């Protein structure tokens, strides 16, 4: 890790910076959102989406490669450690990466002069989002049997969520049917929560519950998937 730290941080910066420049500065300057500045609307969305993307791919892609290609996963499966310990380790590793990314975006947003309320609840929700999508990464890495299909999983599951789940625009502008589907997805609740918290409103208990349930279910599914991978 310390050997690749420089590369790690600089490569982390690129994605978030592009989002902020393109959607925030570029497009966003002319847009007013619910009476506020578009930057203030979009930054919590970008934090949520990048917590999701980073945690998911940090765990999913790595673990899938280590299972199918490098076979380094065998070394862990051969060790007398429980599968829940293995999943917990992978999820925490993904969570750290997700958190680093999210904090970088917040720091950039402040440099761009955006006013956001970042309190303990806000960080809690970011943490929960990272945990949730890291656990989904474990499940995908264990279930998906080729590197190509792993990319497909991202394209069909992660990519649509990135754009639709209340990240760049409010989903109530879409037809009702889409709205219902989007309301079921975890990222929607992550962005709702972060946006509410950043604008100084309180926590949304229902959304928080949805995230907790998703995280628990994905974690359990991850443990089962590791047990079944033999």
């Amino acid at each position, binding site marked *: 890790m310390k*050997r*690749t730290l420089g590369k790690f941080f600089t490569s982390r910066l690129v994605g978030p910076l592009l989002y902020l420049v393109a959607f925030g500065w570029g497009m966003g300057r002319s847009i007013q959102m619910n009476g506020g500045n578009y930057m203030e609307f979009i930054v919590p969305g970008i934090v949520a989406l990048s917590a999701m993307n980073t945690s998911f791919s940090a765990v999913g892609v790595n673990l899938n490669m280590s299972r199918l290609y*490098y*076979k*380094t996963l*065998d*070394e*862990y*499966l*051969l*060790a*007398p*450690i429980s599968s829940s310990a293995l999943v917990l380790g992978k999820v925490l590793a993904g969570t750290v990466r997700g958190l680093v990314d999210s904090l970088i975006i917040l720091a950039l947003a402040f440099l761009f002069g955006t006013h956001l309320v970042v309190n303990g609840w806000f960080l809690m929700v970011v943490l929960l989002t990272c945990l949730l999508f890291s656990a989904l990464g474990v499940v995908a890495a264990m279930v998906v049997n080729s590197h190509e299909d792993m990319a497909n999983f991202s394209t069909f599951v992660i990519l649509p969520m990135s754009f639709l789940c209340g990240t760049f625009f409010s989903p109530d502008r879409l037809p009702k049917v889409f709205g219902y589907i989007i309301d079921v997805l975890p990222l929607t609740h992550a962005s709702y929560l972060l946006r509410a918290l950043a604008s100084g409103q309180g926590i949304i208990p229902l959304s928080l519950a949805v995230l907790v349930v998703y995280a628990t279910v994905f974690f359990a599914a991850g443990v089962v998937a590791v047990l079944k991978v*033999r």
Partner: protein
Amino acid sequence: MQIDIIQASLGGDEQIIELSQLAKKYGDVQAVAGLDLKIDNEEIFGLLGPNGAGKTTTIRMLTMLTKPTGGSVLINGYETTGDLSKVKKEIGVVPQHMNLDLELTVWENLELHGCLHKMPRAERQQRMQELLAFVELTDRAHDLADKLSGGMKRRLMIARALMHHPGILFMDEPTAGLDPQARRKIWDLIRKMNSEGMTVLLTTHYIEEAEVLCHRVGIMDRGRLIALGTPTELKKKVGEIVVETLNCGDTEYRFFAGREQALGYAGNLSANLVIREANLEDVFVELTGRRVGA
């Protein structure tokens, strides 16, 4: 230098690994079809067979990386379906695929394994020094694993497998792709470990490797064990003397129990011929070659 490689307290000559009717089916393909096999304590056992015979699948089932679809395995008295962590402590595994963490140094690879097996720090450090000396990698301890040669990587994998003091070592094609020097070094390591009490089960398709290294050999073909015995017994079984005749570009092999019969047969032939002692390769080809035949 005498190194205490084995600490496991395995007593007597009892069978340390017992496979009964072990089977694995992938969809419609029967990779391993009802294997019955007993492996003695402190023996070097070689599993031989052409590619796709089911050797690797068998090893993966023995090391609990793949679930059998039938039958059972007892390792040192423990079922491989029950308390896995007990079995995992007994066995060391050197997989066929190079699966060191290449972003870590030699030292860190061993340390990771020690941590995964919950070895206390002091014991871990002492063991790592001991094993690095054993596999002659002490001076490369702080190099990245990626920088090692193929033979060194393989030796590091052996050191890693020995970290937690296992009594049984599984090696899947331990010398595949190595040059002759590196291969002999691995052979020496295996003999050295075995002389200190390690049971070794290895797979190979290098026949001379099985011949010089293994006490007993099992030959697998299409998921079944088709021959089992010491290399000498197997040679006796097909005939100790071979007559090779070149017949329109194809070599024909005939096996005989003794020289007289071989000479008698050879006397009636007009073609160019060679009379020699059989080796394990003849056994292998005789038993598997014709059907694999390609």
